[in-house]
């Protein structure tokens, strides 16, 4: 009997110790989103997260997973679609779709660790096989996510600068204004307190 934490839930499974996680997910627990492609850890169709790391579940025995948090494609976008899934839809990535859960999981793990990987790093992390040849669209989707991250940082930076400028201005006004007037001044904007 093995206790596994899968998508935030504890599940106990009665299987042999050398059973690969892939088959526990698919056959024992009915989580069929994770796919079998090669059984030798090469094609990446079976990619899940183990403690956040992209892991090829077809060569990971259940006995190695005690106390670890496992996330599958079913858990990734359980509450709302994950940004990687949205990017996949925006670029219309899937064709036959069989390898895509593994691709999405590998990408999500990569970007969580490194939000702006180089193309070389993308190539290494996304070594998964797609027989339909969706690679150009996958690359576009990942570039889109990287751009979004850059924009997010830019926006945050600009907001911080605006707030700094505003604070400076207010400080200057306070120093110019008579004491009584400063007490009636409007409270600083909510954003400025962050």
């Amino acid at each position, binding site marked *: 009997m093995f206790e596994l934490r899968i998508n935030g839930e504890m599940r106990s499974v009665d299987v042999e110790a050398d059973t690969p996680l892939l088959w526990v997910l698919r056959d024992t627990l009915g989580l069929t989103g994770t796919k079998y492609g090669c059984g030798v850890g090469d094609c990446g169709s079976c990619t899940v997260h183990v403690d956040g790391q992209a892991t090829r579940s077809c060569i990971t025995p259940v006995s190695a997973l005690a106390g670890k948090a496992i996330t599958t494609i079913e858990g990734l976008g359980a509450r709302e679609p994950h940004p990687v899934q949205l990017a996949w839809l925006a670029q219309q990535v899937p064709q036959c779709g069989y390898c895509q859960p593994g691709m999405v999981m590998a990408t999500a793990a990569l970007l969580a660790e490194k939000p702006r990987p180089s193309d070389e790093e993308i190539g290494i992390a996304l070594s998964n096989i797609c027989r339909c040849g969706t690679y150009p669209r996958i*690359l576009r989707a990942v570039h889109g996510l990287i751009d979004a991250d850059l924009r997010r940082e830019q926006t945050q930076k600009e907001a911080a600068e605006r707030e700094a400028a505003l604070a400076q201005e207010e400080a200057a006004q306070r120093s110019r204004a008579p004491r009584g007037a400063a007490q009636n001044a409007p409270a600083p904007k909510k954003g400025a307190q962050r």
Partner: protein
Amino acid sequence: MSALDAVSAVKKKDPARGPKRPSRRQFLVAGGLAGGGLFVGYIAYLLRDRDRLARVPAFVRNDKEFALNAWVKIVPDGSVVVAVPHQEMGQGIHTGLATLLAEELDADWSRVRVEEAPLDKIYGNYVMLGDGLPVGPEDSGILATTLRWVGFKVGEGLGLLATGGSTSMRNAWEPMRLAGASARELLLATAAKKWRVPAAECATQTGFVLHVASGRRFGYGELASEAAQLPPPAAPRLKEAKDYRLIGKPLPRLDAPAKVNGTAQFGIDVRLPDMLYAALAQCPVFGGALKSYDEAKIRALPGVKAVVPLGNAVAVVADSWWRAHQALANLPVVWDEGANAGLDSKAIFAQYGRDIESGATTEYRAEGEVWPAMARAAQTVEARYSVPLLAHATMEPMNCTALLKDGRCEVWAPNQSPSLVQLAAARSAGIDSDKVVVHTTLLGGGFGRRVETDFVAQAVSIAKALPGKPVKLLWSREEDMQHDMYRPAVISKFRAGLDPAGRPLAWWNRIAGPSVTRSFMDRTLPAAAMDFPPDKANADGAAEIPYAFPNLLVEHALSKTPVPIGFWRSVGHSYNAFFTECFVDELALAAKQDPYQFRRSLLGAKPRLLKVLDTVATKAGWGRPLGIGMGRGIALHASFRSVVAQVAEVSLEATGEVKVHRVVCAIDCGLAVNPDIVVAQMESAIIFGLTAALFGEITLSKGRVEQSNFPSYEMLRLAQSPAIEVHLVDSGAPLGGVGEPGTPPIAAALANALFAASGKRLRSLPLRLPKPAAAPAAAPTS
């Protein structure tokens, strides 16, 4: 002239070894199943398509659904359910077909979903059968037209549901639009009746019927039950192309959301109550058989339920696939390796080499007088090319779930032909076809592999041993790779003569290899299997070479091998395009001309091909200097009624590795029903073809396939994938196929680019450059 006479007009060179005369029916089935792409007489087509609008009872699954014809039903909540008779394997056909119907129905696209069509002749693929006939696609003579008509009639008669030969859109274009238009008119008439106004005062708009003058409206869902009672209109009116609001737009794929969140259901994902799992080992040698096994050794292993012998294979059934797989690995099995235990790749190529020189040949196209012209030529050029066996290697390995109960059989399978699945299941179960229910799931790749039914027959045989229990058979990747129906290995020989100005005078091309159609028929419909008429797939792409050669001869020497071979994305085009488009480059070199301009000069009367070629050359910047060590290659190929040209830019790395930097592609497939899906299919076909050109090779030793999994049968990966640009050219030509035509030219574009980069002409695939020279170990002994 009868159809058979027409076929006999395809000359057989060696009457001594000539064909036994087949029955008319044999020929039609054999020729028709071959796949490919032809146009069917338009008037006949339209007439028949109206007959395809009848209502099919099996299409309606509950009393909340109202079928307006065989192709569309409407639910009171306004959802539109479209019957799709073609299987989704990534090519986007579910989305494309739904688009056709939704367009004419004026449906709200966000309310449209698809459902697998039931097994009924009405949904049969009529076009595919006409496609395999041994007449050229451009041939509009009486003979060819008659043959196509006959092929169409047979297609109608058989009503085979199948997806292949890039035919789906061409098959469904008329019936699905007519079905949408017919349903729209029924809804409109129903609303008019309810309002008691003339139908002419009503209009339809995205899921509603409107009464224009009063502003009243009904949702389609409110009208469905009444509309379903009306007789269909005699002549539904189709929209004009200028009024399309869905066709021609890059609509998002209907299957995409489920494919990114893991809920998409492939065959491997089927789960049924009390289901058991089967793992399978087949005799490693083709044609071998199971001799014995020692069940006692594994009977006590956890979860094992049964061991089932299957003639050439043995299956272990357990309560999980992993347990079945593990037990199978521990099962002692003895094989009778049979007659092919000594077969290897070298022997096969040696046999081809003999047969191409001395075997009987079939002429596929003969024009002018090749040999006198060759004798007149100022120079002749000769070359011999070859390609290896290839596996399909779909990402989802072969699988099928079967349940036999009370004399009935139910199967769930990712497949390219529910009709053939039904046939195979019935045969295996020993029951009539009408006792077999087929459920087609999404396909984790097809590429021609899933038009086969070997895995279905096996699953049913296993389930037969465990009546009442559903059994899911799943092949391991190793079984999948070593028991494919391979793209055949083929060799091709050319001789061409040029005049003093470098203009071609004569073109001779002889191909040697086995017949895919024959191999397929031997497996699928053995009663109809034969070598006559000649298999069009052998010469697909070689016989219809588009260039102006005043004297031309294209022949095929049939060279049979025991290797099971099958339809592999673009079939004969996959090798003939590599052969012909490389040899055309060799002629350009001999003529001291630029490869692009040389092709142009030979396409005078082919404006459609010229436009595609010019588009790709312009977009690729043909003639612009490239970096040192880089080269550019061009190739043009028409297949499945579409025209595709590609330019590849490559460099040779210091390691001897070929790096593909960029591929520019132009396609004319007529109207692009969904331009984004056409682009995706070009990207897909290019990468599929690059994998084959750079890595793909299945070899045999001792009758066994030597490769077993991806590490030994390598695939192109993201890091090696080039930038791809696709340009759509619409010449106004009739609809062409999209799933396959992008694959044929890429190997030639690549080899031609490699020649430009390195000066080395590689004439066999995969493209392997000699390793960078190492210091010679010893002096030669000669």
